[in-house]
């Protein structure tokens, strides 16, 4: 049976009805059309589906959409306006932290959750925060450098 779901995504209020078995990822992608958040492994292992829920990074593929009732969610689409990147996004672009780009939204959201909580993380703290996000292209070197550059602005 469908249930009412009120939530705020990227600063905008949404009111929809969803069935209990829908994941937050499905609702974000299919109902809200925000496909920047990716479906990778579907089992909470790759981190491509990471969004920020009430300030905390979560894997939206393992969360029921109804768990987001009344919560505030940020996805990759909420980080920038047209032509105006968030500094973290700019760091990813300028430091070459992107290859195929599939893990990028999840990496950025996981990094943002960290930086919001801890603006000056150590290298180890960054690694701990990103240890739930897989990247098969970059070898993580440039991702780490991009997040580090935010931790210690040049």
């Amino acid at each position: 049976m469908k249930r009412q779901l009120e939530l705020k995504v990227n600063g905008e209020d949404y009111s929809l009805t969803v069935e209990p078995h829908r994941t937050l990822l499905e609702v974000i992608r299919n109902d809200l059309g925000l496909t920047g958040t990716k479906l990778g492994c579907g089992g909470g292992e790759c981190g491509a589906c990471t969004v920020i829920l009430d300030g905390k990074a979560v894997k939206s593929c393992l969360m029921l959409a109804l768990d987001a009732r009344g919560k505030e969610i940020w996805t990759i689409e909420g980080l920038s306006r047209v032509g105006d990147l968030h500094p973290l996004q700019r760091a990813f672009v300028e430091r070459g932290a992107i290859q195929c780009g599939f893990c990028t939204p999840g990496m950025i959201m996981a990094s943002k959750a960290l930086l919001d909580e801890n603006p000056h993380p150590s290298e180890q703290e960054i690694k701990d925060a990103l240890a739930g996000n897989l990247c098969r292209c970059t070898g993580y070197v440039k991702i780490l450098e991009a997040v580090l550059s935010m931790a210690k602005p040049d």
Partner: protein
Amino acid sequence: MERFELLEPNSLDEAFRLLSEYGDEARVYAGGTALVKLMKKRLVHPSYLVNIKGLKGLHYIREDEEGLKIGALATLREIETSPLVRQRLKVVGEMVHTIGSVQIRNVGTLAGNLCFADPASDPAPILIALGANLKIASSEGERILPVEKFFTDFYETALSQGEILEEIQIPFLPKDSGAVYLKHTMRVAFDLAVVGAAVKLDVNAKDDVCMSSKIVLGGVASTPVRVKKAEELLKGKVINDTLITKVAMAASTEVDPIQDVRASAEYRREMIEVFVERGLQKALERAKGGVL
């Protein structure tokens, strides 16, 4: 994922009622990280999920004179970052840090981890070693069960139908005690323990004599295993390298380790020896250094 009904009790009593009413067809849902994954793979098919997230009264981490009290809804991440946990029982926070990833710890709960009863559960060994208890509630009332008695088989617990794990009670470490949890994995992060070794030592600070000890192993059998014969070797003895080696060897022969895709039984046996040895060394160091 297959369809199910989400039931949302407003009180524990209502939750008990729903659980007894729907019996086997219902499962308690809190963090859900493990359950949703299995449901997505169509390996578990509950018709009803009893969502206890609305029971805000279960969401706490606090202390009393005996120890930490952790409510069923406290997330792993809250425990990991709790100043209270860090100050009063550091080893618990250290252990939680090794579970899954930040995203998983932000959602998953300690109670959920225990109830799922994965043989490789990280909290189980150290909670047993620390002598933690569980407050289990049902319509019949409450009961207190040592964590040590909680795990009955692969993914099976002592919870009866209609019961909910309400609180985890972890006693503080007495003075001159040290505890540690060491997790051996094949990957640094996001991996299950090939061997998880929890060691707690109570020593006489003057002469390093072991007053009592608990050594508990995870990831090696259908449930966490306490190696009592090995513990026995420590009792009343001065803890030194020779004894530690002997105890570690005894621990490795006391268990009949499982074999799976992560490691062979033989390797597990060898690692039990290594990690019990390292655990004892570290626990002794902590007992003497006053690390909580």
